[in-house]
């Protein structure tokens, strides 16, 4: 058991480091997914199978998919890779590395005292469910409200007025001097391919 923990932990750490240093966005996303899967394994080892499942489904599944979706929509291409290359100079790692290093040291020294054993009881989903509907009911409701707010916000922010694109569409049509508006005949000026 312990071995699984260490391996999964190492996988998570390594893939996170790799994720940080990638130039291509999509590569980095994939590494992030690997990292999340590693953390899910850790959860399972700890006995929280329910959370492990949740991690995989929601985090690695839905959220990362959202990321991928947006990245694809942005359609950044090769220029983005160029930019990243320019931005990511070695020198830039120094400051944050120092800060993070100090943070790590502090955290480690904080948890040094306690020794914890892995394994022990498995906290099953049933327990979690009872707790959710019991003492943590309010939290659940609040979370749902939060999600609603997120939904509305995302919708509003993503809303795009349609007229602009239609106008552009018309202009391009006029340029073609063909009986306009008909998408089927839009490419009529192209030499027809013989079927």
């Amino acid at each position, binding site marked *: 058991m312990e071995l699984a923990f260490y391996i999964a932990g190492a996988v998570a750490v390594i893939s996170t480091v790799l994720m940080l240093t990638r130039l291509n966005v999509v590569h980095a996303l994939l590494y992030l997914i690997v990292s999340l899967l590693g953390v899910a394994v850790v959860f399972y080892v700890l006995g929280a199978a329910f959370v492990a499942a949740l991690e995989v489904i929601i985090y690695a599944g839905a959220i990362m998919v959202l990321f991928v979706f947006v990245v694809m929509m942005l359609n950044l291409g090769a220029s983005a890779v160029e930019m990243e290359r320019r931005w990511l100079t070695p020198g830039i790692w120094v*400051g*944050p590395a120092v*800060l*993070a290093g*100090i*943070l790590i040291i*502090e*955290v480690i*020294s*904080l948890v040094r005292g306690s020794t914890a054993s892995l394994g022990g009881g498995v906290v099953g989903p049933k327990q979690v469910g009872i707790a959710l509907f019991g003492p943590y009911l309010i939290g659940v409701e609040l979370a749902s409200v939060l999600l609603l707010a997120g939904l509305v916000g995302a919708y509003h922010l993503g809303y795009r007025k349609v007229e602009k694109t239609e106008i552009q569409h018309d202009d391009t049509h006029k340029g073609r001097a063909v009986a306009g508006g008909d998408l089927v005949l839009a490419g009529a000026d192209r030499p027809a391919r013989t079927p």
Partner: protein
Amino acid sequence: MIRLLWLIPALPFASALILVLIGSRLSKRVAAAVGAGSIGLSAVITILVAIGFYTAPPPGNSYTQLLWSWINVNGFRTQIGLYLDSLSLVMLLAVTFVGFLIHVYSAEFMIEDDGYSRFFAYMNLFVASMLMLLLGNNLLLLYLGWEGVGLCSYLLIGFWYRDPANGRAARKAFILTRVGDTAMSIGLYLLFTQLGTLGIQDLMQRAFAQWPSGSTYAVAAAFLLLGGAIGKSAQLPLQIWLPDAMAGPTPVSALLHAATMVTAGVYLIARTHVLFSLAPSAQLAVAVVGACTLLLAGFSALTQHDIKRILAYSTISQIGYMFLALGVGAWQAAMFHFVTHAFFKALLFLGAGVIINALDDEHSIFRMGGLRKELPVTFWTFLIAGCSLAGLPFVTAGFFSKDLIIWNAWSAQYGYPAFWIAGIIGALLTSLYTFRMIFRVFFGPLGIPVTKRPGYRMTIPLVVLAFLSIGGGFLKQPLLGFLHSALPSTIEAHTGGLTEIRSETITGLIFLIGLYFAYLFHLQKRNWADALVSGPVGRSLHQWWFADWGFDWIYDKVFVQPFVWASEINKSDFIDAFYSGVVWLAQWFYRGLSRTETGRVRWYAAGMAAGSVLFLAVVLFK
């Protein structure tokens, strides 16, 4: 009747208050009525009080009216009290009466000015302070009036404040009199700490009882008071502010700087005459100061071309005569000369005002001429006043008063022949410059044409004062006798070959000599005057005397420049550094902190991370 004494200073003060508060909303007519009317009422009450005092003199020939207790601290008690004796009564009459005439005059003179009510407010405040000065029964109250008139002098000289030159003249006057005032206040401290009181009569009694003649305290106190008197009365060496004070309106020059304020010094010395008689060296100093000043100012008056400056130097010179009289012990003669001088000098100034107004603000006598036919009333009154100033024998009041002083300069207890000679030369100079002025302004070809003629409000005061300039002479004996109750009579110590009649004859001759020479140089053969001035000796003398014997220049080099230099270097001294250091520190922090507001998210995140790192460190190492 005598109990109305307190109204005399209270009325002008009340009207000053009214004019200050609502003056701008009153019409010019009402403002003038309030302003001049209060002085008029004061004059009437003064006359009534005088009649009461004269016909039924109160015991001890003095009347004290205590109004209320002013300061009562740990043994230092002063009251607001009014003290009336013949000395203050004489001055009161002169101040209120001449003041009233000048107020009536200025009701027309200042009619086109925007600050009409402000002018009358200041003038009334001035008269109120002057009356307080004269009536105060203790030196502190006198000092209050002293400062009050100084303040009003500053306000009135700089009345047309929009011209910075006027402000400079006003400040010069104030600063120089301040020097004198400081000396006087040190004198007051000295008197109080040594004698325990500031009430004038008590003071004189205690000084007489406790201090032997010539004691250092007496001498010191007397010299300090003399310092104050020199400042206020524009004597050597603090005389340079008075010619520049002519920047103010002419009624101001007439009231303050001819008739009343500048004689405050004379009054002070006369009041504390006991102190001065206990300090013969101080009294001698008074006489020397007077003699030197009258000569110096006389020479300077001879070279001026601004009509008001001639009159200013003439005032300095005449007050020098008064100081001379005080110094040789001729107390009553000094007061007599004060009274006559108030009449004719005020008249001269008012006449000059008429001329300046008529010629559209022209001040130089060399550009005037031939006004004899154009302004007849002004000419005759001016001529009368000028003759009185120069001392036309037997007819004019000035002759009697000045002559008395000159005679006493020889014969009185502390008189020296040198003083007499100075007086004679001064008389010659007076005659010369007076008639130079008259011949240049009124005779000869017409200079600048007359554009405005004075109305009745300006001519009636002129006429009244002219009558007084003539008739005042006949007041000599009654006045001297009246003053006897307040001032010791002059002891005729030595005559040594000269009698009063002979002295009078000599002064009469001097008058005629001056008249003749003035006629010669300024009417008959004017080119002789020009030749005299353009010759090498003549020119340097002329320039030197024109610049008031170089006093301005000396003071500038000795006092003003070093002071300005010192304050320049002192601008950024180490105490200032404290305050500017605080400012600099604040700015440094501002610059530093504003650099943290970059607007970049990563920077903020780094800040948060650093903060949490620090926090954890604190937790760890606690």
